[in-house]
């Protein structure tokens, strides 16, 4: 008939029509990608260049410090995260059930807060060195050696404590998934538990470890509070320096574009890990894990190994902040704590609502018209999570300034009205930054939960008389309700903790809890801002609770009712 492959080339889509959904999805995705394009565009635009100057002075230092920091934090989180995950999934020792979720607690405390607390504890005037001097009779700094916390090593230690839960979470799931048969097969083939761990379990978990590691490295590149406070010269610190102190936006953008190269490598690692993971899902059947009982010394060592990260990463910082909050809460209140809290809550909830709404729109649009263009657009739009806040801030500032100036110029020439700057320097810019940065969080969560609605459920709703929008309202949203809430909470909490973008984008004299704590801590006033820091930590507990609930459900042999939505295949 000669029809094959000629007239019917591109009919992959269901309900394929040029309409609002395709257009809307692509437009929204493009809008969310503007900041990333802006940074790349500015870096590629020839102009006033600070390259020569940077390259001869600080660039080599930035590169070396950033690489060392990434290597140190990567190694530290891998050892602690994968090690503790291995212990709690494969071994039986006192406290294992508690450690399973307690190991997530350090996630609740932003790295910069951990940094302030340990500086407070370990600096020369702090209680630890004071106690050492008092008990050992030292009097001056020259009498003894003590590690300097405000250093690259200190930054590595602090970020390791704050970020290892990413590796822990992902490798724990990987160990649970794979443990079913292969591990036992390895044992029946004559390998002992340790040898099996290194030859079977770890290689199988490698994709998950790589994903966890790449998330850690993204957070490391993103961090501003810690490196600024410790005066560690990383790229992110450099961007702030060039922008705020040297007053050169294009210089900052050029630095940012180099930083984007680092990010590209990390994103590539992550994507590769996720691809690899598909093939590593060997079985969905869970069976009771081997559960090697540990006794005596080894049990004590295992408990200690799990206890240490929880105590150092959560209990100590939370305890110190709690004690300060009790003694100094009046100082914090006096410093307009309530306004800052209102600012944080307002910005975070608005950002959460918008981010989730955009996430739902994009995920549903991608599902309705899953063509290559739509898919690519949504993937690109969700790159924001990988881009450090400082870089993204540049990408937000430039287009909004351009928009403001254009609107002003047009209105001025046509109506003779000068609008001034509408968006720039307003809180809306912060919200835009938050939405772009955390869109992936909501998009990913919602996309995953959309898969609970099978394609035939879509079809059933359509043939029963519900249009696309009605189907979203009557079927998808109710089924996804839990995940939508989860996405909103995750975005909300990340906005509460967010520091680098907020510092750059905030209007003059405007503070959130995070910027307030950062400023006070930088002025050696941690105690006076402790209540604010504790508030951030308290909000950070929310996702930990959510995640530990998921852990409880996914535990093999756990007889909790499966999610009702999962009942129909």
């Amino acid at each position, binding site marked *: 008939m000669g029809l094959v492959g000629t007239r*019917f080339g591109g009919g*992959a889509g269901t309900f394929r029509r040029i309409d609002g959904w395709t257009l809307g999805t692509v437009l929204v995705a493009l809008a969310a990608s503007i900041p990333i394009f802006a940074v790349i565009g500015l870096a590629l635009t020839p102009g006033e260049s600070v390259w020569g100057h940077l390259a001869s002075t600080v660039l080599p230092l930035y590169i070396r410090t950033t690489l060392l920091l990434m290597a140190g934090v990567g190694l530290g989180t891998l050892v602690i995260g994968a090690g503790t995950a291995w212990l709690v999934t494969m071994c039986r020792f006192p406290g294992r059930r508690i450690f399973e979720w307690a190991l997530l607690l350090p996630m609740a405390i932003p790295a910069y807060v951990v940094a302030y607390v340990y500086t407070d504890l370990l600096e020369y005037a702090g209680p630890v060195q004071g106690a050492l001097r008092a008990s050992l009779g030292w009097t001056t700094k020259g009498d003894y050696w003590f590690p300097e916390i405000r250093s690259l090593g200190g930054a590595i230690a602090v970020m390791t404590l704050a970020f290892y839960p990413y590796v822990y979470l992902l490798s724990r799931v990987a160990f649970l998934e794979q443990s079913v048969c292969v591990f036992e097969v390895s044992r029946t083939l004559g390998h002992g538990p340790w040898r099996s761990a290194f030859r079977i379990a770890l290689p199988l978990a490698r994709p998950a470890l790589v994903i966890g590691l790449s998330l850690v490295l993204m957070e490391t590149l993103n961090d501003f509070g810690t490196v600024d406070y410790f005066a560690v010269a990383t790229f992110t610190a450099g961007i702030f320096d060039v922008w705020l102190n040297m007053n050169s936006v294009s210089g900052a953008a050029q630095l940012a574009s180099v930083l984007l190269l680092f990010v590209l490598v990390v994103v590539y690692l992550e994507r590769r890990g996720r691809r690899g993971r598909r093939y590593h899902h060997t079985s969905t059947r869970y069976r009771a894990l081997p559960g090697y009982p540990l006794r005596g010394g080894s049990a004590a060592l295992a408990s200690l190994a799990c206890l240490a990260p929880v105590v150092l990463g959560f209990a100590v910082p939370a305890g110190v902040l709690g004690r300060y909050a009790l003694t100094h809460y009046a100082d914090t209140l006096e410093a307009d704590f309530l306004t800052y809290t209102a600012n944080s809550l307002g910005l975070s909830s608005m950002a959460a609502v918008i981010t989730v709404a955009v996430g739902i729109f994009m995920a549903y649009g991608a599902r309705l018209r899953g063509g290559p263009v739509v898919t690519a657009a949504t993937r690109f739009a969700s790159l924001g999570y990988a881009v450090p806040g400082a870089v993204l801030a540049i990408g937000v500032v430039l287009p909004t300034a351009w928009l403001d100036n254009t609107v002003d110029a047009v209105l001025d020439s046509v109506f003779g009205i000068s609008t001034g700057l509408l968006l720039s320097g307003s809180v809306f810019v912060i919200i835009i930054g938050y939405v772009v940065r955390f869109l992936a969080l909501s998009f990913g969560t919602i996309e995953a939960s959309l898969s609970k609605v099978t394609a035939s459920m879509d*079809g059933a709703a*359509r*043939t029963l*008389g519900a249009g696309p929008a009605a189907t979203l309202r009557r079927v998808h949203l109710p089924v996804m309700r839990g995940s939508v809430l989860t996405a909103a909470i995750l975005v909300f909490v990340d906005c509460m903790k967010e520091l680098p973008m907020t510092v750059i984008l905030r209007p003059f004299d405007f503070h959130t809890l995070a910027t307030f704590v950062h400023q006070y801590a930088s002025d050696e006033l941690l105690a006076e801002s402790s209540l604010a820091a504790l508030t951030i930590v308290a909000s950070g507990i929310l996702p930990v609770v959510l995640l530990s609930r998921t852990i409880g459900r996914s535990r093999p042999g756990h007889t909790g009712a499966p999610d009702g939505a999962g009942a*129909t*295949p």
Partner: protein
Amino acid sequence: MKGLSLTGITHAYGDRTVVLDASLGVPAGKMTCLLGPSGCGKTTLLRIAAGLEIVQHGRVAIGERVLADGDGRRHVPPEERGIGLMFQDHALFPHLTVFENITFGLSDPAPGRLQWAREALAGADMAGFADAYPHTLSGGQQQRVALLRALAPEPRVLLLDEPFSDLDVNLRLQVREETLGLLKETGVTTLMVTHNPEEAMFMADHIAVMNEGRIIQAGIPMEIYFRPMDRFVAALFGQVNRFAGVVEGGRVHTPVGGLAAPGLADGRRAHVLVRAEGLRLSVAGTNDPSAGARTPERNATPARVISTHLLGRSSHIHLGAAGPDGAEVVLHAHVPGVFLPETGTLVSVSVDERQVFVFADD
């Protein structure tokens, strides 16, 4: 005719053509079955009818009303077609109760339809399950709810996609009869997709056989079974013995004797298909009609029993017979009841002419 008609449908996913110039009429008030193996394009055809796929080439209409035409220029969206579709996986909404699922398609629910839904649930022995959630139901119950949900908005045409494939064998027979009863009672025009020939024979007023994207033959079940138009359709209903030969004097010589080749000229190469149940066996010296064995007929062929298998209601026998070149040919025979002669027993094989199909070798 107020039925559903699909005319000249051709459909491709990328470079892969899955439906090729398929035309199909579904008469109003009747049950039509679209029968074919997995991947033959029948589900795609169903989705095109429902409006879940955009027509690339061809036309979909109910009576005179054209629903979709040409290369997607005209496309009535699925929610405006009045065509119900019941999915293979039932696709019940997990967040809605049984009753809410059934009444999902009733916009501005008329009291009459709500009453109908209650009565229908009671009729399906599920009156107590109105407020239950789908994941608490058994497979058979889910199937009933999915069917009632599709029927509730009183669709002009009901499409069923492998509606019984999720169910185990015994339940399937029972649910099949219930479903047929309910559909006959409502008198809805129905198109059902299945890969199970027995199911199609049982349910259908009309059967359309589909293979590799084409509709090969359409007709009433008797026609499909006794007058298959090609080898594929003839072999659809179970195991067949295949022979090749040349027509001589109006007959083809096969290991089970010379078989009439009506309509084929002498000298043509032909394929002969004999259904396994078309071979009649009798053991020399015994005569036990109750076991499905018969007395030898005039043109019976001798054969030797290789192995026997009791299937329950029937027996399957492998036989060795002499082929045209003297080599042994294995025959499959399917006889009702228990018929299990010893290996090596000599039997004589005769042929039920109605189960013999001769096609020219093109």
